[in-house]
């Protein structure tokens, strides 16, 4: 899959929010769940089934990686972005920025 090209389909909102959550810092599952809800002002509330389904796909595609938190009091797996994941997220941000710029040009009220 060619990163940043038109062959990369647009990311769904939950996947984008998960990647954005991990872009800030590595997180474990519950932390991602809460962060996504907070980022979207409660609009996107992931169930654990949806979250781990997405995490599984992102792991398979090597966009994120899993590691064991060292400072946690109990064994807890955390997730972080891989370089490939960061590049895809960056490409998506560029795409969205382009769309936003286009929208502001075309959809904003024109002066008479």
């Amino acid at each position: 899959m060619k990163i940043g090209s038109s062959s990369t389909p647009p990311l769904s909102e939950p996947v984008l929010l998960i990647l954005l959550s991990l872009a800030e810092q590595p997180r474990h599952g519950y932390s991602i769940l809460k962060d996504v809800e907070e980022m979207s002002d409660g609009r996107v509330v992931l169930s654990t089934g949806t979250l781990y389904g997405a995490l599984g796909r992102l792991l398979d595609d090597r966009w994120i990686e899993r590691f064991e938190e060292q400072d946690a009091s109990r064994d807890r797996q955390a997730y972080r972005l891989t370089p490939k994941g960061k590049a895809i997220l960056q490409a998506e941000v560029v795409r969205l920025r382009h769309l936003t710029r286009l929208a502001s040009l075309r959809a904003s009220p024109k002066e008479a």
Partner: protein
Amino acid sequence: MLIRLYRLLLRLFPASYRSTFSQEMANVFQLALADAWSRGVLRATAFCIREFSGLALGAVRAQARRSQVQEQPATSFGPAFDAVPTFYTCEDYAPRRSALFQGGILSLAFFGAVTAAFEYGVNHRIFRMPPGAARDTAQSQFIETGETGFVAFGKSMASSSDGALMLVLGTHPAVAAIDVKLGAVSLRHAWSNLVWVLRVHPNLRLLAPGAFQRQTGPSTGNPGDFEAVYFRASPVLVALDADRDQLISAGEIANAPVVLKSLDKNHDGKLTAEECGGPALPYDDSRAFMRFHPVLAALDADHDGEISASETENAPAALRTLDRNHDGKLTLNELLPKLGIPVQ
């Protein structure tokens, strides 16, 4: 129990998926569940519905992903037609048709189970408001039916609109009015011209007579005065309240056997539900009718749906059991059906 159910449903996922994520998912579910409970019962209910339906869908997706059989290039999203939106996913494969079919059946089965569980919860008061909540609004204005049974209401509390009887139940938006033909209340029969008797379903909230009078202004006496209506509605109360002062005095209680015998139209020595003011009813309904009214329930001591000769003779003692404040007389509050909270 929910966590156990969650762990059970995790078995729907492929083994490889389970070995990687199941423990972690259960831990996250436990944390999220505790958080949802702390926000209230409604949030917790919504959380459970979302979680379990999400889990079922996730299992279907995981199974479909495992069986990836129809690889298709990432660019083949199908032709885009005018005005037809193109749907994108992150998946680079299409699930097998049989997997979709099985997933549909699984989703339907799960939806049915969740619906049945919700119905069970509603009927068993699992999702009910905790005691004391909304006390000012609910408790002061509504009586609440705890079980299927009969309830009486004055004819003045009902109005007719386009031929459909509308029963004014209260100011709460959820129970502002119920169409008797369509709603949770089914019109059973008229007890008399003044008081109607309805068969009600559990957990239905009805406007208390006192609240109705408060809502519609001061009592106008007749027929809006519920007390007067109530005492005239039942032949038994009419007979017992000889002086028409809307209470049954000590003397009237002592004279009960004599007046009750006057209601025995066929002179068989016992009073049936019909002779006590009810219409002809099947046996079970007859017993329910006699249990509904406190006076009839007290008189029919063996609850067989009839007031026998010996029960008629024992009427004074039976009526005195209704005298909760031990003042020797029976007033409206002591004679109203017990439907939950006391009526002001």
